[in-house]
């Protein structure tokens, strides 16, 4: 069976890779969007926090024999807690200043984190084995799908939509949305906005760490794994416009798929296709697909 002259198995597997990459783009740009919404800070350390999430899972398994499922919970909690500490001790001091200082501070933090892990673990990647329960694959008829990859897509989507639900449909989410609109009034209504901000940053960072654990069995766990990914995610954010939570999820998944398709038809361009799309979107809609004009 062929699709546009390409064997369906190849077509399907590239689409699956695209969908998986898209899931990571979606979780990471969602985390960035949440943090940006309330803190007005572009969290440049997001890639490093994703990398640390993967490393916590790897260290937990190799040093302490803690399995994947525990790591999937433990790593976001640990890295999220680190995020809370960073927010309380450093980011908090910058809210009154130009937004650019937040970007610069988190960039510095990213350098520190990456440097420490590179010193400890070198630049070569570490392998993390797929957990037993998710080994093997299923034959879908037109292609063979490894179960773990299917799980990643499902888990990522579940977390993304869970977050969307929490923000759009619950009371906590309502506070959050109100806080991004007008922190002073929300504060005056007796809601602890600084605590809300701390929680938000911690949650956004935990999302990055969660993505890191999901990524560990697929990609090599290495200090650089987040550094190059984060720039693509920035492009995703520019394309999506960071206007809405749903926007970042949809844009992330969509761009992953487009990247996968490019890999089938014109592999040389797959690394830059997202940036090309960014240029086109900027020319047509400077505020991004889902963004409100500034």
């Amino acid at each position, binding site marked *: 069976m062929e699709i546009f002259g390409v064997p369906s198995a190849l077509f399907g597997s590239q689409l699956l890779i695209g969908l998986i990459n898209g899931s990571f783009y979606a979780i990471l740009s969602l985390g960035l969007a949440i943090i*940006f919404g309330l803190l007005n800070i*572009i969290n440049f350390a997001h890639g490093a926090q994703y990398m640390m999430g993967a490393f916590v899972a790897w260290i937990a398994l190799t040093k302490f024999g803690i399995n994947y499922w525990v790591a999937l919970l433990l790593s976001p909690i640990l890295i999220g807690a680190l995020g809370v500490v960073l927010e309380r001790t*450093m980011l908090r*001091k*910058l809210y009154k*200043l130009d*937004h*650019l*200082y937040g*970007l*610069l*501070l988190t*960039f*510095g*933090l*990213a*350098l*520190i*984190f*990456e*440097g*420490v892990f*590179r*010193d400890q673990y070198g630049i070569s990647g570490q392998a993390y084995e797929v957990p037993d329960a998710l080994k093997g694959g299923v034959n879908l008829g037109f292609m063979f799908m490894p179960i773990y990859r299917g799980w990643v897509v499902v888990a990522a989507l579940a977390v993304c939509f869970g977050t969307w639900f929490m923000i759009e449909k619950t009371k906590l989410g309502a506070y959050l949305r109100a806080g991004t609109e007008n922190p002073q009034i929300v504060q005056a209504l007796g809601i602890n906005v600084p605590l809300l901000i701390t929680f938000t940053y911690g949650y956004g960072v935990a999302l990055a760490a969660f993505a890191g654990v999901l990524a560990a069995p697929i990609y090599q766990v290495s200090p650089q794994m987040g550094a190059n990914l984060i*720039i*693509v995610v*920035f*492009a995703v*954010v*520019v394309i999506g416009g960071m206007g809405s939570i749903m926007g970042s999820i949809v844009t992330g998944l969509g761009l992953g798929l487009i990247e996968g398709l490019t890999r089938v038809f014109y592999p*040389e361009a797959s*690394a*830059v296709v997202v*940036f*090309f799309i*960014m*240029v086109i979107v*900027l*020319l047509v809609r*400077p*505020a991004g697909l889902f963004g409100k004009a*500034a």
Partner: protein
Amino acid sequence: MSQNNNSLFARATPLLFGALFVIGLVAPFAVYPTFLMKILCFGLFACAFNLLLGFAGLLSFGHAAFLGSAGYVCGMLVRDLGVTPEVGIIGGTLAAGVLGWVFGVLAIRRSGIYFAMITLALSQMVFFFALQWKATGGEDGLQGVPRGHLFGLIDLNNNIAMYYLVFAVFCIGFFIIHRAIHSPFGQILKAIRENEPRAISLGYDVSKYKLLAFVLSAALAGLAGATKTLVFQLASLTDVHWHMSGEVVLMTLLGGLGTILGPLVGAGVIVSLQSELADKVGSWVTVIMGLIFVLCVLLFRRGIVGEIQALIRRAGIN
């Protein structure tokens, strides 16, 4: 009171520049010239960056693209087409200027953090081109770029001759930046940085001025990159990698954002630190750079030169 201080600065500035110029002339006889050339190249790069961030308030996170692409263009011109070094430098500078125009047209449609992210993403595209295109040598970069003869006459393989070329290039670039800042154009840039809506309401075509500043900054960053390629006879991926874009932000921030000499001081400190530490502490260089970054942002946002100026000002008042 501040009027007095400003005139104090104005009177001291020519003296300071004169002294620095003399130091620059005799320096290669006291310090290893290659090290000085590195500082001057990165110093010019940082000054060009500061023209944009410090005076127009535009944070470009993609300036490595201009440094690196000018380096590649200059290297290809000199090595593969056999042109003389000055033609290579001019070619690299022009290429960076054109690239800067393309980036600028796309990026100035958004401001603030978006501007930074767009320039970063665009520069990552340049990185992938440098990595995948055969002519740029991929992972190896362009190696064995000859320094050649300046105007076909002066042999640049002599380190002292090369140093004076770099020094001249730096002085020209620095002079252009200095002139630009102290011209009506520079005043308009400052007005835009301080209050963009007001500048618009005064009737200035803000986008045009921003774009002009961006192109100028990109071309001067390219001038630094092309010269650097001749000095080290190499154009490599390091110069187009986004870490380099971060490094130039660090140099500028550490030296003093929006000060004339700050970026040069910042470049000097960072280059010295890197060459001192590189073989001693390995990966900790990155950690130390990150720590300096964090400390600059949290504790002394005015940078080294900015803090010194503030001290002088305070002393003047008392």
